């Protein structure tokens, strides 16, 4: 029995190696996704606990934070501990962020302040801690490209502030910008230099630890009401769940994507194993007859076919699982850029168990089912090469009556000869096409039509943002109008709602904007209307009342629609300038400009020189930088996906082609004897797979028109974008289908080279 298994393993060594490699790739992908799934959240929680991070944090103007507030908060039901910090807050335009400018709500903390909650740890530093400088989160360091020893520059209130980057800091509150806030830790000297600066708002931050069994959301709501009742506006109000969600969002998306990828490869692998076993039974029927004749049972023969797959599959899975640990640190590093915290993935017995166990079991079940045919083989029929359960076959595409040249009909004959092979090829191509179509459409929308991608992820994308003041605003507008540049009154303010504070977009006319982020209902048109973010969709309906408070003034708005905002996790709202005026008692003096063909840099310069502005930012440049950042990332992902796809196709086609060449050896010998050249036979063989491959690719491409929007909708909804602006260009799908077919054919031609070695004479010698 062992000898028979070894014999089977040796006989199709190359094909088993291919199958093992496909299993290995599947294990690498699945184990990676499972380790991330099991460990990212845990690592987050571990660091969260290690740094005694608060469950809720609220930032209020320091001037309004009276002495007894801390005790009042501590006495609230569900609160176990409260700590108070001082900080400086500013809407800071970060310079040279990936070569551009980004405005972020930034909290500047003093590094040396004693903290009992939401502690931080310096993970890397350059030079002594006593010099003037800033410790920045990993998010800024990696994504913005600020390195230790370099400088980080801000424009705040029209003035420039520059700090030496002293190191990178880990903290679990404002460590990435998913919450809409970022935290910077300054040395005493640096903090001291801005502590009294009027461009910064002095804030008091209250950090709350809740009881173990407390409902964090309920406590947050109570807290919001408590400070509102005391007329204190909340500049920021965050809970740990929202923060966690925003910081593990990309990781969750990647886990989902990898798991689906692994599942698709697994499906293809099952088809592959079934195909190979069925072929082996056809090829070795005589041998099996002899084995049955000399006393081997069906069960033993089935085992001799199935066990090699079990061994190879297990070996591939173990190797793949082990290999995934060489890949995981890099993946974790990439995720750390977005999540703002890093961890080293460690061996996970549960992930390894699921990866190896579930795949091995699935492969064994399907291979046993495929090998079941051996049971029905009678020794004498097998020796004669007859399987009574299989029909004799048909002479498909008869050459005398079929239309077209004989060569074409010969190809079609071969193409229709094996339904198992065709099903496998179709499945492989269909699945690979899903991956490539996804990649192709992603590349198209990031590189060719970047607006589609950026408008999905962002709110409005003007060319220039300009901030003025009451005194110069009208003159500025006149200047812009005289230049023929489109301008829309637009700005964002922080306001409070029942559970905390949210950014509120204020616009003079939402119809004039170029990125429609409303996915249900409509944008506000009147002062009493409000559109709210997707995070509110669960608790509010169109027509409901929604209360906003600004500087102690409140009013009820009527919900007229829902909008999306990836950056704020759907915690956002929008009102008209009239609606804003009713709670603020003033208007916004900021504009979005759409320069249409003008050089934004020089036009921004012109506005700065006019003397009518407080701040002018080249938003087009920011957008370009953001696009370049995503473009390079997605191009790398696309290239990786393409390489993996080609590798999988190569491995699967290797098995298919080897099987074909073995089973058609006699055919090739006869054909060569009667005068076919190797080239003709190679083209015929590759030609016979081409129709199925083309069909698989085209069918998948056509269906892509339907499944791709669903896929992108699903992915974007995970990150908070209910409406994506992606185009599914038919041309891209067709080109991708043709590329996939071409890749299959090229690989097919290369794998068919052994046909050259088959000689007409070897047929006679072997016969």
């Amino acid at each position, binding site marked *: 029995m062992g000898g028979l298994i070894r014999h089977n393993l040796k006989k199709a060594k190359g094909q088993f190696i291919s199958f093992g490699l496909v299993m290995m790739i599947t294990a690498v992908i699945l184990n990676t996704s499972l380790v991330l799934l099991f460990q990212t959240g845990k690592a987050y929680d571990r660091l969260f606990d290690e740094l005694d991070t608060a469950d809720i944090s609220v930032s209020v103007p320091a001037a309004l934070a009276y002495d007894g507030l801390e005790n009042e908060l501590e006495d609230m039901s569900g609160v176990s501990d409260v700590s108070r910090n001082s900080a400086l807050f500013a809407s800071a335009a970060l310079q040279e962020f990936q070569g551009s400018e980004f405005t972020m709500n930034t909290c500047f903390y003093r590094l040396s302040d004693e903290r009992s909650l939401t502690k931080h740890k310096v993970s890397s530093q350059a030079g002594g801690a006593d010099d003037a400088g800033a410790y920045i989160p990993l998010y800024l360091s990696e994504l913005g490209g600020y390195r230790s020893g370099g400088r980080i520059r801000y424009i705040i209130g029209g003035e420039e502030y520059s700090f030496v980057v002293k190191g990178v800091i880990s903290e679990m509150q404002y460590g990435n910008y998913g919450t809409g806030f970022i935290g910077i830790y300054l040395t005493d000297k640096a903090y001291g230099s801005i502590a009294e600066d009027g461009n910064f708002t002095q804030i008091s931050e209250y950090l709350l630890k809740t009881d173990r069994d407390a409902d964090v959301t309920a406590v947050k709501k109570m807290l919001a009401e408590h400070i509102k009742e005391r007329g204190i506006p909340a500049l920021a109000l965050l809970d740990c769940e929202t923060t966690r969600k925003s910081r593990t969002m990309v990781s969750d998306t990647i886990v989902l994507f990898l798991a689906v990828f692994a599942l698709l490869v697994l499906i293809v692998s099952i088809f592959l194993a079934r195909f190979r076993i069925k072929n082996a039974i056809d090829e070795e029927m005589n041998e099996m007859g002899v084995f049955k004749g000399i006393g081997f049972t069906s069960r033993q023969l089935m085992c001799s076919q199935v066990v090699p797959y079990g061994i190879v599959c297990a070996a591939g899975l173990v190797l793949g699982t082990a290999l995934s640990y060489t890949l995981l640190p890099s993946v974790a590093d990439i995720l750390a850029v977005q999540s703002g915290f890093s961890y080293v993935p460690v061996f996970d017995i549960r992930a390894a168990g699921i990866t190896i166990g579930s795949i091995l079991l699935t492969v064994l079940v399907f291979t046993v089912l495929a090998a079941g045919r051996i049971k029905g083989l009678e020794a004498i029929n097998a020796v004669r090469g007859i399987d009574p359960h299989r029909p*004799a*076959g048909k002479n498909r595409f008869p050459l*005398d009556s079929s239309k077209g*040249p004989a060569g074409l009909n010969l190809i079609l004959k071969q193409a229709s000869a094996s339904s198992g092979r065709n099903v496998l090829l179709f499945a492989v191509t269909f699945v690979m096409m899903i991956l490539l179509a996804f990649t192709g459409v992603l590349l198209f929308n990031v590189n060719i039509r970047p607006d589609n991608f950026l408008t999905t992820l962002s709110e409005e994308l003007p060319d220039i943002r300009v901030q003025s003041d009451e005194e110069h605003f009208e003159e500025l507008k006149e200047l812009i109008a005289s230049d023929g540049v489109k301008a829309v009154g637009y700005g964002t303010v922080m306001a409070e709602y029942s559970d905390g504070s949210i950014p509120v977009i204020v616009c003079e006319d939402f119809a004039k904007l170029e990125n429609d982020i409303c996915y249900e209902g409509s944008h506000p048109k009147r002062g009493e209307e409000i559109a709210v973010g997707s995070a509110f969709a669960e608790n509010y309906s169109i027509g409901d009342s929604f209360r906003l408070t600004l500087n102690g003034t409140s009013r009820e708005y009527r919900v007229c629609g829902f909008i999306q905002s990836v950056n704020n996790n759907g915690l956002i709202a929008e009102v008209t300038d009239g609606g804003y005026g009713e709670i603020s008692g003033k208007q916004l003096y900021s504009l979005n400009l759409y320069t249409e063909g003008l050089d934004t840099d020089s036009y921004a310069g012109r506005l700065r020189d006019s003397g009518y502005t407080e701040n002018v930012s080249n938003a087009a440049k920011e957008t370009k930088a953001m696009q370049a950042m995503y473009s390079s990332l997605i191009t790398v992902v696309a290239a990786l996906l393409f390489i993996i796809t080609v590798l999988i196709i190569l491995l699967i086609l290797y098995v298919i082609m080897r099987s074909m060449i073995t089973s058609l050896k006699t055919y090739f010998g006869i*054909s060569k004897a009667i*005068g076919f050249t190797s080239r003709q036979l190679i083209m015929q063989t590759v030609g016979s797979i081409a129709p199925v491959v083309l069909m698989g690719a085209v069918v998948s491409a056509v269906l892509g028109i339907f499944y791709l929007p669903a896929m992108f909708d699903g992915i974007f909804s995970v990150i908070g974008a209910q409406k994506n602006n992606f185009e599914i260009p038919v041309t891209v799908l067709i080109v991708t289908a043709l590329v996939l077919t071409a890749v299959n054919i090229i690989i097919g031609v290369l794998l068919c080279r052994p046909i050259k070695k088959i000689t007409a004479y070897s047929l006679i010698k072997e016969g």
Partner: protein
Amino acid sequence: MDRDVIISARHLKKVFGSGESEQVIYSDFDIDIYKGDFTVIMGASGAGKSTLMYSLSGMDKPDAGTITFCGKEITGMNSDELAVFRRRNCGFVFQQIYLIDKMSLLDNVITAGSLTSRNKADIVKRANELFDMVNIPDVTRRKLPSLISGGEAQRAGIVRAAINQPTAIFADEPTGALNSNNSDAVLDVFSKLNENGQSIIMVTHDKKSALRGNRVVYIRDGEICGDCGLGKYTSEDSARTEKLESFLKDMGW
């Protein structure tokens, strides 16, 4: 009378294996094959008959020497050039028949025919004429090889060999796997083809088959040790039979 030589082999050498296991099949071997002849190659098992025949037909390559086929030297050709050469000049009939199992008999023949002609109608017409000649009815022509008798399959094999009107048909023990009735039917087809001017080179162990030839070459230890002219085949000719028997006796058969 001068006769046209279609194949001329000079100083042929063929060796199997190497070193201690080296086996010289033939060495410094010369032979001429004439147009219109039904040449039968006989000899004991292992004498090198089939090896010689496949060398002469360009299916296998000799290790040394030259083969000139219709004035063209084929020994220097690569495998694809030989394949193209064989299309027009050689037809093959094998002991194991080797029809393509997923194709009907007709398709097996058209496949070979399509290599030399693009006119499918002409190929089908000629294939049907040949099937008529070998007595394979229309219904059988459309069956797969696995569904017909060995005799029918071998006759279809002959049709395939003849479809391109080759310079020579090479038959390797064509009746070796057939019963007596089927053998006769197959040999009749060869005789009929030869009557029509088709050159045939056949390897056989069978005296009855050898009688169909007009020339019998006997090979022993890689050398021609006898070459017997039998004259034209007729079904009732005891003198030919006696001549062949006497020749074979002399050869130690």
